[in-house]
């Protein structure tokens, strides 16, 4: 499980300084454009957001721009709406990532052990949810459950609690269930592919040796395979958790945040684009950014997740 994206071993001994200089220059000549484009499209806007978040600034009254320091943050952090949205976002993140981890692992196992004829087939099929547009996925699930055009109510009318009149999107808990279902459907393939890569790294010798020594399937899984996959599981969870935390599309399509399903991204959108309150919207954007950065920081520092593992390992 080497991480070495950056450490291509090179014959350093014969490298003369002139050669090193020209290599460095060529390196930056080639990598520079991509690097600065990334800085321009991300770093500059977030600094602008940081700056704007210190003002009351409405596009409806642009001349009233006024420096208020951290007051916007104070307003947000003392508003129950923010905490409720944060709660919903965390709930969606935790539930979807947990379910996806289990389903994704089972899928990865299925692909890892599958016979040749079905392996390609399974991989092709799981790439469909991966590649499909999130908005399309949201509409597909929405129409399935919708009281107007859906069929889930009539299919599952034998389940207690489901009747023909059940409006899934008129109540927070049922609406969130469908939102999470569509997220899980859409993103499990990605996590399963990351886990499949992890499974492929578990030395086959170890599992075979354990099998010879009489270890049961469950013992081999728990004592050999899972510990050897720890790194790729952590990377998969982190990537998906950060992705799930910025959920927007499915919520926007299915409920637009109604009935207590609003998430942080939607709050930021509603504030900046909907109400044109750039100062307040920027402050929410900064907070959202800090949440994601905090998740990454905790993962890297506390759980020692090596993010390079995804790209560097062969």
């Amino acid at each position, binding site marked *: 499980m080497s991480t070495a994206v950056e450490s*291509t071993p090179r014959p350093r001994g014969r490298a003369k300084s002139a050669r090193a200089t020209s290599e460095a220059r060529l390196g930056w000549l080639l990598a520079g454009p991509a690097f600065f484009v990334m800085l321009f499209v991300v770093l500059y806007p977030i600094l602008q957001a940081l700056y704007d978040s210190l003002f009351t600034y409405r596009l409806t009254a642009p001349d009233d721009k006024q420096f208020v320091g951290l007051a916007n943050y104070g307003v947000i952090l003392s508003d129950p709406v923010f905490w409720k949205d944060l709660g919903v976002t965390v709930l969606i993140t935790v539930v979807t990532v947990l379910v996806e981890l289990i389903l994704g692992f089972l899928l990865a196992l299925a692909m890892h052990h599958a016979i040749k004829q079905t392996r390609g087939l399974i991989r092709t099929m799981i*790439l469909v949810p991966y*590649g499909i547009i999130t*908005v399309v996925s949201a509409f597909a699930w929405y129409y399935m459950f919708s009281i107007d055009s859906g069929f889930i109510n009539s299919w599952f009318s034998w389940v207690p609690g489901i009747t023909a009149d059940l409006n899934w999107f008129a109540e927070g808990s049922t609406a969130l269930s469908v939102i999470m279902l569509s997220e899980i459907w859409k993103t499990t393939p990605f996590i399963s592919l990351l886990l499949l890569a992890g499974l492929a790294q578990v030395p086959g010798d170890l599992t075979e040796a354990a099998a010879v020594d009489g270890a049961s399937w469950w013992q081999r899984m728990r004592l050999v395979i899972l510990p050897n996959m720890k790194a790729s599981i952590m990377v998969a969870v982190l990537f998906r958790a950060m992705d799930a935390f910025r959920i927007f599309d499915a919520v926007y399509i299915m409920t637009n945040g109604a009935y207590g399903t609003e998430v942080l991204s939607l709050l930021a959108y509603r504030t900046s684009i909907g109400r044109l309150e750039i100062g307040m919207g920027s402050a929410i954007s900064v907070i959202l950014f800090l949440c994601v950065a905090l998740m990454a920081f905790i993962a890297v520092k506390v759980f020692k997740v090596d993010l390079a593992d995804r790209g560097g390992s062969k």
Partner: protein
Amino acid sequence: MSTGNPVPAPQEAVTTRPGTDDRHPEAGGSVGRRDVAPETARRGKRGQGTLLWWILALVIGVWCLFPLFSIFATSFKAPSDLANGALLPTTWSTENYREIFVGDSRELFLTALRNSIGITVIATLIAVVLATLAAYAIARLDFPGKKLVLTVSLMVSMFPVISLVTPLFNMWRVLGLYDTWLGLIIPYLSLTLPISIWTLAAFFKQIPWELDQAAQVDGATPLQAFRKVIVPLAAPGVFTTAIIAFFIAWNDFVFGISLTSTETARTVPAALAFFTGASQFESPTGAISAAAIIVTIPIVILVLLFQRQIVAGLTNGAVKG
């Protein structure tokens, strides 16, 4: 291969090793592939295992394809048939497709489709070109700041998209980029560029670049060596990266609804959210479903043709076979 086995065993010994197959039918398929000592009893077992694998594939297939099939079926329901409470339409009607291609929603959908294709393809091309240069430098050259480039691209890829929207929304209005193609292409680079750099860097690290010198020793000019040796080696990685970048840009919704206001630059995912029915009393469900199916077709074609490459790209070459 022979860890835990006292006798250095030939291939046959591995496949007939007790315990591998008998106690673990779920591993039957993978063992069976290496089987070089056919026995009738094992054949029967293998046939059973194969059936189980096909059933499993069927279950996975239903889970993966059902929602897509559901919206496909909805797209063929006439407006009066929408509330039939069944998966399939009572009669298959192409009314919704007529609505988006020749009917009232034509303007909205076709312009959005054109915007989506144009903006996504341009953003993908720019990202792949820039990423190819950067990844080549990362894979082959030693320069200070190499780690920085990778770290920054990783950070950019984790960035919450919505955090960019507020500042860009404001900046684009000032710069006149709001509701233009360029105004979407630039932020799309923040989505496509980082993953392209990572994917390509991993691909390029696996390329035996020395072949280039070998070809030159054999008398090829540097240009010939590049064209005949390097390009064929690098092309599959570049191509795969382009597909993945295309998927990501094609999928965007947040930038699409935030940074556009008219049909000038609105992309399909954003346009879907603005669809209205033929009259204000008619729901746009059918038209949205039909449009959703149309924009899913390119995805399905790419997946069918290139599943192996896409999987390799997503896991950076970690999966083989």
